[in-house]
């Protein structure tokens, strides 16, 4: 088991290196003159010279890349040109909001998704099953911005249930979290249903029933325990996609998170900020996926015992 985890960690390191190289190439090399792109045609010569020095653009490619790697390894992403602050500071101010949003979204998605999935599996082919599965398909196909705007319009504007003027305390996170978690709830519900349906056909479920266990005990002690493995892995994968997928939700609900920072960086052509936010988010996703992979190895006794 340790060997396979070690191999995965090594692979991840290689991918991390390639990802940083790709971002470097995309943002520094291809745009031709990065500084003109950033400052516009009318930048004065002095600024251009200063920025060229600062970004090492006057040195050869490998020197640039080496200093860039050294910088990101020490957590130094440079300073934002539009906001005049170190990128690291901006990200660390925005990240708690993104985390808060993702955690809320995950909680909503998992509770709703699992409950619907379990009910659908137990009442397979019943009305509730069809209803929930129809909803979950809608969850996968409906664009995030549509859910977000429908919620804003109906719940916030028409019904006045929640304040939509901005995020002041935790209640402000409710609507954005539903909008963001909607997709994930659908996929969790589908996966829970399909694995549970499969498990419920196993012989040991019949054995448990034959022993005289009640339906609830069979479901909780025997079926769910075995059906949860793929669901937990998917949950771990979802955390990273929720953290990175918040771009649109954060924009619509004006939440000051990392995704919104990235969008702002693009519209204001702020290369250090864009580079920092993209690198940061991608690293989180990669590490999250690595953890999900390892979790699977640790949780599944068949893999853990090396059978």
């Amino acid at each position, binding site marked *: 088991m340790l060997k396979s985890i070690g191999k995965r960690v090594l*692979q991840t390191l*290689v*991918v991390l290196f*390639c*990802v940083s190289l*790709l*971002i470097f190439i*995309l*943002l520094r090399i*291809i*745009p031709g003159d990065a500084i003109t792109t950033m400052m516009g045609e009318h930048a004065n010569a002095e600024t251009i010279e200063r920025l060229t020095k600062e970004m090492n653009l006057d040195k050869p490619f490998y020197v640039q890349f080496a200093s860039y790697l050294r910088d990101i390894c020490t957590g130094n992403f440079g300073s934002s040109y539009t906001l005049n602050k170190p990128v690291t500071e901006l990200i660390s101010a925005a990240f708690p909001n993104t985390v808060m949003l993702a955690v809320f979204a995950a909680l909503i998605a998992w509770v709703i998704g699992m409950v619907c999935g379990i009910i659908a599996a137990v009442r397979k082919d019943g009305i509730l099953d069809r209803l929930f599965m129809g909803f979950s*398909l*809608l969850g*996968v*196909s*409906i*664009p*995030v*911005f*549509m859910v977000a*705007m*429908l919620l*804003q*319009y109906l719940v916030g*504007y028409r019904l006045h249930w929640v304040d939509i003027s901005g995020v002041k305390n935790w209640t402000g996170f409710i609507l954005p979290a539903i909008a963001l978690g909607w997709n994930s709830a659908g996929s969790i519900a589908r996966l829970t249903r399909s694995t549970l349906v499969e498990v419920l056909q196993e012989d040991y479920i019949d054995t448990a029933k034959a022993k005289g266990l009640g339906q609830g005990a069979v479901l909780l002690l025997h079926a769910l325990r075995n059906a949860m493995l793929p669901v937990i892995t998917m949950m771990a994968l979802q955390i990273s*996609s929720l953290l*990175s*997928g918040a*771009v*649109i939700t954060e*924009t*619509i609900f004006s939440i000051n998170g990392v995704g919104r920072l*990235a*969008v702002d960086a*693009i*519209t204001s*052509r702020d290369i250090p900020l*864009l580079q920092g936010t*993209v690198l940061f*988010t*991608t690293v989180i*996703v*990669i590490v999250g*996926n690595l953890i999900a992979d390892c979790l699977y190895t640790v949780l599944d006794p068949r893999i853990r015992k090396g059978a």
Partner: protein
Amino acid sequence: MPKKSNPLQDDFRTEMAAEREALAAQLGESDTFGDKMRRLASDNKLAVFSGILIVIFILMAVFAPLLTPYDFDEMDLMARLAPPSAKHLLGTDELGRDVLTRLLYGARVSLAVGVIPTVFSMLIGVVLGMVSGYVGGMTDAVIMRLADVVLSFPSLLLAMVIMYTLGDGITSIFIALAITNWASVARVVRSETLSLRETEYVEAARSMGVKDMVIIFRHILPNCIPSLIVLFTLNVPSAILSESSLSFLGIGVQLPKSSWGLMVNMGRTYLYNAPWLSLVPSAAIMLVVLAFNFLGDGLRDVLDPHLKNS
């Protein structure tokens, strides 16, 4: 000298053959492409309905000028933000333009963005996947690590960075989406190639000295086509969603051109007094995406059941 037939053995042989045939029929392997399509048409009404819906959307996009009396940028400043009525079935926007008309013209961009980058990403994915699976070794390792790198990015973020590098515009969207979507295609094609490479007919072809290129294109590629059809139908809606997200964020299709995502974005300012401006195009996106997903699921069930698990 002719071999004397052994009745017992013959019996056994026919029995085996019958069994094998039954198994093949059960797996749907003996069916022709036409058989499978007929089965889809009779068993899966939802997929058929979705297919019809997609055709209707395509026709609407193609014949947009004939279907509406208005021009897509014809302004009627007296009727700004008018709610849906007999004159303007889906209302008007902030400059008094007919929303239905803009929806029909926007369908052209949205459908094109669904199909064109998907074709390119499939081409890249198929070539790299087949080479990777057939050649193996170092080439395989390099291509697959490259796919890992692309897949490890959150796809919207990667598309955003590429859009930044290339600048706004439809061509940039095509390129950005093709670059972000090829990797998953390459993975599927590679695994298909790996298993097809071991089949008897490929071995036979190789032992007769058929060139590798010919084997790849004449024996392996045609057998990948069912999976490719399924992948195509499932990748088109995800490309449509990506474009609408990019345009929604203001880094995709730019004015005066129009796409559904851009319409949603422009309408967002008026969400509270004219909700139809963003909700109508959102609903259009949802319908098309749902239709493609249903059709894709249906096709997968008849053409390529084992894809379901991957």
